């Protein structure tokens, strides 16, 4: 088991290195002198030279890359040009907000997606299956930022039930924090629920056809017990893996959701950074999300082996 985890970590290293090359070369895409772009309105030659020295832009590109990666490994992703804060500090500050949103969204997705998937697999070919599929496909086709706008219109503007925007830290007022986050989390969760439902359905369909389910039925077990204990437990493996892989979708969805509901999280940070041409922040965020995604993949692989006793000895 340990050697398996170690091997997976070793495989992840070249991928992370390639990502760092990619993120680093992003800044080389900038047209013209990067220092001019970084300095913004500032045109004082002394300042420009200072920046050039500071970011080692006079060095050859490979040297610049090595310096950059070396700093990143020590947690130094540069300084935000807008707030003058270290990028790492900015990200660490915004991350808990997005994690709260993500966790609540995943809860929504699990609560909606998994039962719907099981139900539609068990009732395959019936009206229930048909409706569940239409709802899931619609969920995949609705832009979630539009769903957010429509919910604000209905729930906040018309019915005045929930606040349309804002954020209250969990530590400050837990109840208010959760109610404020309810609508954004629902919007983000429904998009994931659709994917989750479709995968749960196909995993369940595969398992329900298997011999041990037939045996369980033949033993005269109650259908509910067959479905939940024998079938679902085995279908769970691909579902767990998928949930980890939804991380990317989750982060991308969070960018838009935070924009609509003006939640001061990770997603809003990247959008604001883009408009303020705060490139160090953009690079930092791409790097952190990509590494986060790889870590999630790694955890998914480990969970896959843990959940699957046949693979454990491998």
């Amino acid at each position, binding site marked *: 088991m340990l050697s398996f985890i170690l091997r997976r970590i070793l495989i992840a290293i070249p*991928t992370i290195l*390639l990502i760092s090359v*990619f993120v680093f070369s992003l800044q080389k895409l900038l047209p013209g002198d990067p220092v001019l772009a970084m300095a913004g309105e500032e045109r004082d030659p002394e300042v420009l030279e200072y920046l050039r020295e500071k970011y080692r832009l006079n060095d050859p590109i490979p040297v610049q890359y090595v310096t950059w990666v070396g700093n990143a490994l020590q947690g130094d992703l540069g300084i935000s040009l807008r707030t003058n804060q270290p990028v790492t500090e900015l990200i660490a500050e915004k991350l808990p907000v997005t994690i709260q949103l993500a966790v609540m969204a995943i809860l929504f997705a699990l609560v909606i997606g998994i039962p719907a998937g099981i139900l539609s697999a068990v009732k395959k070919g019936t009206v229930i299956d048909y409706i569940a599929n239409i709802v899931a496909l619609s969920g995949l086709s609705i832009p979630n*930022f539009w769903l957010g*706008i429509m919910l*604000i*219109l209905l729930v906040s503007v018309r019915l005045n039930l929930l606040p349309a925007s804002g954020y209250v830290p969990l530590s400050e007022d837990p109840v208010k924090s959760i109610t404020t986050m309810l609508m954004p989390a629902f919007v983000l969760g429904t998009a994931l629920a659709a994917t989750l439902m479709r995968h749960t359905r196909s995993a369940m369909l595969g398992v329900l056809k298997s011999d041990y389910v037939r045996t369980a039925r033949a033993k005269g077990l109650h259908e509910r017990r067959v479905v939940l204990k024998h079938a679902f437990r085995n279908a769970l493996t691909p579902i767990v893996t998928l949930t980890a892989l939804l991380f990317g979708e989750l982060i991308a969805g969070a960018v838009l959701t935070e924009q609509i509901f003006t939640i001061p999280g990770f997603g809003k940070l*990247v959008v604001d950074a883009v408009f303020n041409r705060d490139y160090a922040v953009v690079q930092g965020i791409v790097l952190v999300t990509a590494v986060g995604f*790889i870590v999630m993949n790694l955890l998914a692989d480990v969970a896959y082996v843990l959940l699957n006793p046949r693979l454990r000895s491998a």
Partner: protein
Amino acid sequence: MTIADPILTRRPESRVWKKFRTHKSAMLGGVLVTFFVLIALLAPILPVPDPAATDWGAVRKPPTAAHPFGTDEIGRDVLARMIWGAQASLLAGVISVGIAVLLGVPLGIVAGYFGGWTDAIISRCTEALLAAPFLILAIALAAFLGPSLTNAMIAIGISATPIFIRLTRGQVLSVKAEDYVTSARAIGLPTPKILTRYIFPNVLPPVLVQATLTIATAIIAEASLSFLGLGQQPPAPSWGSMLNTAKNFLNQAPWMAMWPGIAIFLVVLGFNLLGDGLRDALDPREH
């Protein structure tokens, strides 16, 4: 020397078409997609006002006979902007997926067919690109390339490329082991000929399905980028940027937010249904 070519005979194609035709939801998808393609193509000759013409006397007016979809915050006709916006959305969908296919399929074929170091390098790069979430990657690229519809399409295209590399590579790996490829190699056919004549036609069906489904994702991605201000720039219309403006006038002019969302939903649904239908029709296991 002739080798029976399963792809070039007529029968399988007509069977696929027959299966597709009886697939109700796929046909619905086809109708939806055709409808929006026609609207986008006919935009210049449809009898609607200039999408950029402002009318300060008709600011944020609800739908009327003169403006069936209402007017926006500077008195422009929302229907006209919707129709011209269809062009931006479909172009973004088709061109970005075109970029992804043109880059991804050859790379996937090379990686799968030649294996070894070429495969290792291409595959590691694919994994690295796949690790960055699609939209984050597109946002970062659009940010560094500068905001415009063209750059949004390039960004979406590059972000979607790894999916096609991976898909094509997998397909090539399974086709490569087939007897007819082995025999083609045995009789000494040159590699380019094997690739174009035997490998490529077999890679095509799954790529076609994936391309259709990715157009749906790309249209949402373009709308998202434009919504964030990183796609189509004003005053040119796009459904995403219309939603961006509309969210500021939700209380006063809810129709401004309704139509673009419905249109994105319908066209994306269309491509998703079409893709699902194509997959069912092309799946040999389901004959």
